[in-house]
């Protein structure tokens, strides 16, 4: 072997070592949560790092039934998916126009929307409640979805603007020369190019909303309309006054975590790689 080959082999190994260590820690963390959910609370605290002697699946049964995790799961699934699709439908065109359009007040409007990222959400609890009550949307999943969409707009548009504005303009002008309309340029040229960015914000929004609980806590009252993360939240708060069922909590966390991981892997594979292939050529 030539020395340069050795160097590159060493370099390569070092990269795997760094990335591998970080990734293994993530795996370790997820496994720890799953193992914790199979222990008794007592053993969880007495020996947090050992394998469970007798795996207890009762934690899952208890959590699933007494906390209606089945219902919550469906609610979360619907609300989050509808929200993410709506967020994209609303934000992608707006971000496109804001970054590639040419009109007066463009910059100001873009800043106006970006500034929404600076609003601390707890301040909106009371006014939003009043608005939703006036519109008779309080305690409805529709109302929650609308709020999710509206509050995700600044972040989404801000990120997407960046993706659109960094796209090459030659393709755009070429398409216009070819006789494409504005809309066709957007739909068939720019949209595919921005696909990695769109997939990224879709995933980030999905995960953010899947774990969101503060707004749903304020806007949802009926137990049958709760979301999964609200279910987790009520498990956590039950620790005070009603018994510290930590193993049960981890069972709940696992129930929320597993589909998210599955969806994340499916989404990131399909959306990022799939669309990138079609787009960037």
């Amino acid at each position, binding site marked *: 072997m030539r020395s340069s080959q050795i160097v590159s082999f060493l370099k390569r190994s070092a990269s795997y070592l760094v990335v591998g260590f970080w990734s293994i820690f993530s795996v370790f963390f997820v496994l720890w949560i799953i193992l914790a959910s199979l222990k*008794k*609370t*007592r053993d969880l*605290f*007495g020996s947090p790092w050992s394998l469970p002697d007798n795996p207890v699946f009762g934690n899952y049964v208890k959590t699933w039934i*007494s*906390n*209606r995790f089945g219902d919550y799961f469906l609610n979360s699934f619907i609300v989050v998916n509808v929200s993410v699709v709506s967020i994209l439908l609303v934000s992608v065109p707006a971000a496109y126009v804001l970054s590639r359009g040419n009109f007066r007040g463009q910059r100001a409007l873009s800043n106006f929307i970006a500034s929404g990222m600076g609003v601390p959400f707890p301040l909106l*609890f*009371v006014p*939003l*409640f*009043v608005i939703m*009550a*006036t519109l008779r949307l*309080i305690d409805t999943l529709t109302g929650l979805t609308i709020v999710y969409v509206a509050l995700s707009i600044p972040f989404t548009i801000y990120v997407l603007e960046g993706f659109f504005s960094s796209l090459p303009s030659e393709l755009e002008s070429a398409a216009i020369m070819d006789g494409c309309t504005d809309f066709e340029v957007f739909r068939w040229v720019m949209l595919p190019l921005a696909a990695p960015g769109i997939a990224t914000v879709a995933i980030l929004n999905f995960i953010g909303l899947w774990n969101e609980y503060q707004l749903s*806590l*304020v806007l949802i*009252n*009926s*137990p049958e309309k709760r979301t999964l993360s609200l279910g987790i*939240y*009520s498990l956590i*708060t*039950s*620790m*005070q*006054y*009603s*018994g*510290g*069922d*930590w*193993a*049960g909590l981890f069972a709940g966390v696992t129930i929320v975590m597993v589909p998210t991981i599955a969806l994340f892997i499916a989404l990131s594979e399909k959306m990022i790689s799939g669309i990138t292939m079609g787009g960037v050529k």
Partner: protein
Amino acid sequence: MPQKSSRSRLAALAVCAGAVVGANQVHASELVFWSVWNEPEPQAVALRKIMSAYSQKHPETSFKVVWNGRQNQTKLRGALQAGIPVDLMDADADQLAGGLQMDGLGYDLTGELTGETKSAFLPGVLDLYAVKGHYIQFPYIYNTVNFWYNKDLLKKVGGSVPATFDELLSLCRTTRKAGKDALVIEGNVGFYNVLYFSNYLERLKGSGAVVKAFEDKSGAGWSDPAVLAAAKASRAVWDAGCIAADAPGFQYPAGQQTIAQGDTLGELVASWLPTELSESTGKDFSWGAFNFPAVADGKGKATDLEVGLLSFMVLKNSAHPKEAASFLNDVIGEDSQKILVAEGGVGVPRRGVAWPAALADGQTAAANATALSPFGGGLTTAYPEFTSNVLHPEFNKMFLGKTTPEEFVSTLVAKTKEYWDSHK
């Protein structure tokens, strides 16, 4: 089966008739109740039972419950602003006192409570949050602040329940010799740790001493030697080896779990501890509790008690305040209180109703209480902002050894003066 179908038709008729009668009755009312409990919790199960028993006795009253969970009061803010009607709510008594009650949004229950109701309460409970003799909140769950400990372990280490603070310190040494720790803390829960300070100060100066010390607007209330003594006593607990040296690193609930593991004898905390640890201890764990012991030359009695209550409140703008109050008279009734104990697993404020077995010593303390003050001595309720921003963090710093008792006292003096200068 013709018989059965005709019977069910009859039943249907009866329901319709009932509905018609109900509609004609002037007093028919649906009480909207926003609750601090989550639906699956045992306390919620107990309340549901109590409400349905009440509706059976009083068919004109029905309930619509929203199980909000712990952020009940925050959610109510929105409802109040939006004009959504809520008749009844419950919350932690301290939270209520500093929230809705302080804003005058509670309905005055004084005239609605029957004589039977008023005399049913354990000593001092109903009056604890009364404002100038008016009852705004209605306690229905009772937690006492004591040292909660493992009776079996106490026997094993050869110790006995301490009657004085010095005996407590010597119990620590006995326990240490047996290879165990006497006490444990949660490094990140300042409002538990401050119990050493507030209880000691109240033993020295009598119940309510903490609030009194703060209310001297010059800050000089804290210059009383008793305050320094209480601060030093909190440190003495460490010096006597009561608490393991690594305990400041315990993040809730890691500290209290060491009791369930059998490594620690007990903790100064409220009677919710056995419930919080029930998953870890199993059913056969022998819980005991003793009051914060007496201190030499103290004005306060060892039977004075700090408590943590949960209360109902009828909202001022309720359309059915009298019906709601009548329900509250029922909540303190013997049947309802027994349901709370049996289903909810909690201590209750009614005289003579036995608490769950693990909490028996708490009940004894409550029945013999000579004076009550809220959890942490009452400053939390009366001056939450100061407690949150100054007392708890500064005490915790001192307690965990970052500052000295003298520095702690002088900070309190300065910050109290500052507080009153800006709140004229």
